[in-house]
């Protein structure tokens, strides 16, 4: 059984007991435990089941690389699936549940898959579910859906109860990893005066060194770490953050840090996670190394663990995973685990060492009475939910002549791989180190910064060296080099001297035993989480998967949430072997950020709910809100769709507004319309290029409706342009189009006609603008008094400055409704007062505010187009019958040349018409018109589509506009529009002006 010793455990505080639950059972741990160490202390070796075969799985590692011990943490709106027990710090009241099983962890129906493993090989889904075709929908897909997904998704109706934030940081040197290498690199860099930020993913400084032992400058390494941290804490130019993982390294020195602030103590105030967005001149990756598993049959049985992890559980948390342990290794480091376990009173039965000879650590182990078997291997681990016995054999061979030994835990070590992820994220290249049998960063090919020079330096075991002395020397050099590259002068201080037991060379072992037969290979796991075995990779190679990237996707090797931290090197070694190629030729798959999964909350930061996106409000926004506004988003603006009165539906309100505006008096808040001032000696010439119409000839005091096209000829915006004085024009744009159109003008002014003297200013928010619309519009303005708004003094399509009531204003006599209409701009600060004055004075004239839907219906009744409805980026003015707005006199304007291209002059282009349903109903928006014949896919040919469609209360019927092939030539024809409701709508092609064709209502 796994148990807690009465002594040991450098990270736990035995005076502080902590109570938590696992699958509903209450257990006890200590402050400083991880969930994994606490579960092991409670003899809970089995922590979950695997994804594909639902095999029982126990914890295999002690840190971020853990593939098996994934749990669902928390409850309700704080539930999170797939959390690693090894990196979850224990706290009082923690609740956890295991994953991938039904009905429970011990008894699981899905485990039948493991019996079917022979029939579920690599690429099983691709191969099996192809035939017969009808089986896909009814049998295969439901089966796959039911078994898909790792862990349980949080309840879809609950919202994350925690808050998150982003921090921005700028530093000379960012050091990622707070082990001895990171600490020393940070010190070496900081001593130069450089600004240094050091981040460490765990809660503790020093990394593995305090567990692995050794001395630095003659004192124990844990004392050295303690002193180093205190020294760094006193340096003003150093920022230290623990529980902060380096998640990714990106272009030009950008890096992400993922800080977990309250996960270890959920009662704490403040945000739960913080995403650091860091810009560093230089980055030192001191990310350490990860031990590789060995590939032998049954290496996934709960109780089989990395040798280093077993050492961690013992030294850090005083936990031993078994009473009778067998250790398998190909290197000297695993002997450290053997020695410590033996000293802690565990029965270390055997160290099976695949090599013929071992170093001084093996001798030390022998002297403690541990039996060391050179040249031996594990043939197979037996046991279901727990290791029961281990069969041993010769490493050279196929696994015959086995000796069976009863044991309850196995430690394995296949050598160490540097954590090269952060080095590689942004293009750092790797080289294969024959001696250590691992990939390490190639210092001659680092990720390149904006200056073309490397900006990442790997340090310590992340760079290859594995002995304490080499690690410290390497880290010291890295810190100094980073400071120098960041423009600081490093001190000539000597690097601290580290010493640890010397080690004999490791020997690569990719399979145990070397020529294991298929029975053994079919139970030798590479990827524990995704259930990929040695035999699967070999099968992929036989089937022709030569690229490591293809093999990865075919077998799913390394595609689990751990991204193959344990499995990748072993897997590609097996692949190389099967292909009879060298490992460096096969290469690695791409390392992509984040290093381990980070929370969606951290990525979102503060941007959620109301602050997800800023909302633009007009000066009258609050009034609208108090008077029943049904809000509609238009760009970033909020506009009133309709003012809904008590007892009314939205549709009722729209109909009331439509009728009242035509019969009496309507007010529209038009403040959102874009207003651009274009000024300068060349402004007229410039606007002649921007608009299809001639704007330079417009007289001061007059207005003109203008169209804007892109250089491709497509309509991009429209609006009324007013000439203010000799060199000043005011251009109205669509709501939400002001910034885009301003940018469009600036682009041409800055990059094409930069010698033209023109300024453009966006004054959209400086004015509140109210459209006063309807037969009584003039009456209400005259009642307020002030400027002359008569037909003679202010004719249609002109503007005047003056006073209305007490308000300084500019009145434009323009109309988007076909009614007598004034659009009146006042300073934004006066908007609400002006609105109030109009409402009060308008009482006797039947005033009602109206919203955007009424605006749309009024303009559609008049056949006026709307950018974004009648246009979609593929429509040209000629399609909409707007030839009159295309100047024939001008030599050039944006879009003019494009309108001559053959596709633009094609007589078959769809053209604007009005559409009237035969039965008076409303056409579905966006419906397509179908014509004769079918296309190559057997679908009916399309001949047009609906662009705007409304119920017109004034006409008592549905009206619509649409683009129809040869439309204007087909007046009176009936066209069919199949709806998505299986009905066929029939509509007659008519003139797009439905109401007051002669424009008599606005001409008063």
């Amino acid at each position, binding site marked *: 059984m796994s148990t807690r010793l009465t002594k040991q455990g450098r990270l736990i505080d035995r005076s502080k007991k902590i109570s938590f639950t696992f699958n509903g059972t209450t257990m006890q741990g200590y402050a400083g435990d991880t969930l994994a160490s606490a579960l092991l202390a409670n003899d809970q070796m089995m922590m979950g089941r695997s994804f594909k075969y639902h095999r029982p799985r126990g914890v295999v590692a002690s840190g971020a690389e853990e593939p098996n011990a994934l749990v669902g943490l928390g409850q309700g709106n704080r539930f999170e699936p797939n959390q690693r027990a090894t990196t979850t710090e224990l706290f009082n009241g923690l609740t956890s549940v295991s994953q991938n099983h039904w009905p429970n962890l011990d008894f699981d129906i899905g485990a039948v898959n493991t019996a079917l493993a022979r029939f579920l090989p690599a690429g099983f889904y691709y191969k099996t579910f192809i035939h017969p075709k009808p089986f896909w929908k009814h049998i295969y897909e439901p089966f796959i859906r039911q078994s898909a997904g790792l862990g349980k998704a949080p309840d879809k109706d609950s919202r994350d109860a925690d808050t998150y934030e982003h921090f921005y940081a700028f530093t000379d040197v960012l050091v990622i990893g707070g082990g001895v290498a990171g600490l020393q690199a940070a010190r070496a860099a900081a001593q130069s005066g450089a600004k240094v930020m050091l981040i460490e993913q765990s809660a503790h400084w020093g990394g593995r060194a305090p567990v692995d032992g050794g001395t630095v400058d003659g004192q124990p390494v844990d004392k050295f770490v303690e002193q180093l941290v205190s020294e760094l804490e006193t340096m003003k130019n150093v920022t230290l953050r623990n529980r902060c993982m380096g998640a990714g390294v*990106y*272009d*030009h*020195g*950008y890096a992400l840090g993922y800080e977990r602030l309250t996960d270890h103590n959920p009662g704490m105030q403040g945000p739960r996670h913080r995403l650091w967005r860091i*810009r560093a001149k230089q980055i030192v990756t001191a990310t350490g190394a990860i031990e590789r598993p060995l590939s032998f049959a049954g290496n996934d049985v709960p109780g089989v663990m990395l040798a280093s992890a077993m050492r961690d559980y013992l030294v850090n948390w005083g936990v031993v995973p078994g009473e009778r342990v067998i250790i398998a290794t190909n290197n000297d480091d695993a002997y450290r685990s053997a020695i410590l376990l033996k000293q802690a009173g565990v029965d270390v039965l055997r160290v099976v060492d695949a090599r013929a000879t071992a170093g001084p650590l093996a001798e030390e182990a022998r002297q403690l009475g541990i039996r060391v078997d050179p040249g031996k291997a594990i043939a197979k681990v037996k046991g279901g939910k727990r290791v029961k016995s281990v069969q041993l054999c010769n490493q050279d061979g196929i696994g015959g002549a086995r000796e069976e030994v009863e044991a309850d835990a196995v430690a394995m070590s296949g050598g160490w791989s540097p954590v090269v992820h952060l080095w590689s994220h942004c*293009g750092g290249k790797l080289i294969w180190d024959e001696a250590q049998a691992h990939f390490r960063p190639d210092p001659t090919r680092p990720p*390149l*910064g*904006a*200056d*073309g020079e490397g900006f990442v330096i790997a340090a310590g075991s992340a760079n290859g060296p594995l002995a304490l002395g080499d690690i410290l020397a390497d880290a010291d050099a890295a810190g100094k080099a980073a400071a120098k590259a960041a423009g600081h002068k490093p001190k000539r201080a000597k690097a601290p001297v580290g010493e640890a037991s010397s080690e004999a060379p490791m020997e690569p072992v990719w399979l145990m035993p070397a020529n294991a037969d298929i029975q053994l290979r079919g139970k030798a796991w590479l990827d524990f989480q995704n259930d990929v075995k040695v035999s699967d990779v070999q099968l992929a190679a036989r089937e022709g998967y030569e690229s490591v990237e293809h093999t990865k996707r075919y077998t799913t090797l390394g595609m689990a949430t751990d991204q193959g931290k344990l499995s990748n090197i072993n897997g590609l070694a097996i692949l190389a072997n099967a292909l009879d190629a060298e490992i460096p030729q096969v290469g690695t798959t791409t390392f992509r950020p984040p290093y381990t999964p980070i929370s969606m909350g951290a990525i979102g930061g503060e941007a959620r709910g109301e602050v997800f996106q800023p909302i633009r409000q007009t000066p009258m926004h609050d009034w609208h809100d108090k008077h029943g506004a049904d809000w509609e988003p238009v760009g970033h603006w909020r506009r009133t769709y309709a003012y809904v009165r008590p007892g009314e539906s939205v549709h009722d309100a729209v109909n009331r507004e439509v009728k009242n505006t035509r019969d009496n008096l309507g007010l529209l808040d038009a403040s959102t319309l874009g207003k651009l001032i274009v000024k300068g000696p060349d402004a007229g010439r410039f606007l002649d290029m921007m608009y299809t119409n001639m704007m330079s000839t417009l007289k001061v005091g007059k207005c003109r409706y203008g169209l804007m096209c892109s*250089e*491709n000829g497509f309509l991009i915006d429209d609006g009324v342009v007013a000439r203010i004085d000799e060199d000043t024009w005011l251009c109205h744009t669509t709501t939400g189009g002001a910034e885009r159109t301003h*940018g469009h003008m*600036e*682009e041409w002014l*800055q*990059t*094409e006609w*930069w010698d033209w003297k023109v300024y453009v200013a966006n004054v959209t928010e400086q004015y509140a603008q109210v459209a006063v619309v309807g037969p009584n519009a003039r009456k209400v303005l005259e009642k307020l008094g002030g400027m002359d708004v008569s037909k003679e003094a202010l004719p249609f399509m002109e503007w005047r400055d003056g006073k209305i009531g007490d308000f300084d204003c500019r009145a434009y006599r323009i109309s988007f409704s076909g009614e007598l209409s004034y659009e009146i701009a006042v300073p934004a600060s006066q908007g609400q007062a002006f609105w109030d004055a109009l409402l009060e004075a308008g009482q006797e004239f039947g005033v009602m505010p109206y919203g955007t839907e009424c605006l749309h219906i009024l303009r559609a009744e008049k056949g006026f187009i709307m950018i974004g409805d009648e246009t979609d980026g593929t429509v040209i003015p000629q399609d909409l019958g707007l030839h009159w707005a295309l100047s024939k006199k001008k*030599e*050039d304007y944006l879009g*003019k*040349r*494009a309108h*001559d*291209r*053959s596709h633009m002059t094609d007589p078959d282009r769809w053209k604007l018409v009005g559409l009237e349903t035969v039965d008076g109903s409303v056409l579905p928006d966006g419906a397509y018109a179908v014509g004769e014949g079918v296309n190559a896919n057997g679908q009916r040919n399309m001949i047009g589509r609906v662009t705007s469609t409304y119920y017109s209360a004034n006409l008592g019927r549905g009206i619509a506009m649409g683009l129809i092939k040869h439309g204007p030539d087909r007046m009176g024809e009936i066209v069919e529009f199949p709806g998505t409701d299986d009905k066929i709508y029939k509509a007659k092609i008519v003139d797009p002006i439905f109401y007051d064709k002669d424009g008599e209502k606005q001409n008063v």
Partner: protein
Amino acid sequence: MLILRCPCCGVDAEETELAAGGEAHLKRFGPGSSDDDFHDYLFMRENPKGVHFERWRHANGCGKWFHVARCTRTLEVFGTYSAQTTEPPQEIKDAITAKRPGWTWREFS
């Protein structure tokens, strides 16, 4: 996440402050031009692996357009310069030659 120095305001701007504006030094063809010239002006772009010239706008900053000479393979930036020019200035060309001897791009080298 590139960093580009805006030659107008001098700020080392992060990519989130900037808006990409496609290939630099396009020659505009208007009314009267041939179909081929106009087509190429609208649609044909270099898309090189290596030295490239681009337009960027300091959109969330001073608002000005500028030119960038950079390497699409290594993301190295050779220099930024004014938008008000029809060809890269000599010092930019020299900076590229120092790092990428023998480079060519359209008619420039």
